[in-house]
C-alpha cells in the first residue's frame, strides 16, 4: 500500500520532537520518497541513531510498507 506525503510527514513529525520535515516524492509512486528531517533532538547523536529515531517514528513501516525511503537527518546547527 502506497503512502501519501502528508501521512508520512505527520508520522515523522509526531514521532520526533520539533522536527522540520521536507519530503520529496522521487517517482510519484507513493513508495520512493526522500525525507530530510531536521530536529534539535538529533543533537549529539550519531547518524545511525538519528536514522533509528526516524525509523521508530515510522512505527515499523520502514522497509515494509515504505519500500524505499531515503532519509537524511540534520540538526538546526548543521543547516
Amino acid at each position, binding site marked *: 500500500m502506497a503512502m501519501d506525503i502528508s501521512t508520512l510527514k505527520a508520522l515523522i513529525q509526531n514521532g520526533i520532537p520539533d522536527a522540520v520535515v521536507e519530503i520529496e516524492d522521487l517517482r510519484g509512486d507513493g513508495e520512493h520518497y526522500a525525507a530530510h528531517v531536521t530536529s534539535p533532538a538529533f543533537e549529539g547523536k550519531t*547518524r545511525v541513531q538519528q*536514522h533509528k529515531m526516524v525509523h521508530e517514528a515510522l512505527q*515499523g513501516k520502514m*522497509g515494509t510498507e515504505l519500500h*524505499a525511503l531515503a532519509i537524511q537527518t540534520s540538526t538546526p546547527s548543521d543547516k
Partner: protein
Amino acid sequence: MQNVIFERIEKDINENDVVLFMKGTAEFPQCGFSAVVVQILSQLGVHFKDINVLEDSEIRQGIKDFSDWPTIPQLYVKGEFVGGADIAREMYANGELQEFLNEKGVEYSSAA
C-alpha cells in the same frame, strides 16, 4: 535459534574488515540501494565481503534484528555497523567514510 544466526553474523563481520550485507552480489547487485554501496566501495578500491541476503532468508531477517535496522543493504567496517545506503552515500560525499576507513586502518585507494 537467533543466537546461532547472530554467531554466524558476528563471525563474518569480525573475520572480514569490510562486509556488505546486500541484495545480490557485488558483481550482480539486485537492488538499487545495494548497488549504490557496491559502487562507493569499488570507487574507493576497498576490498569487501559481499553477503547476498536473497540466498539466505535467515540472514536476511537476522541481520535486521542484529543491528536493529530494518533495511538492506547494511555496511560493516571492523565489526561495526556503519549504516545503510543513505548513510554510506552521505559519508562518502562529505569524506567522512574515507576518514572512518583511515581511523579503522582499512586500506583504500585515496585517488577516489
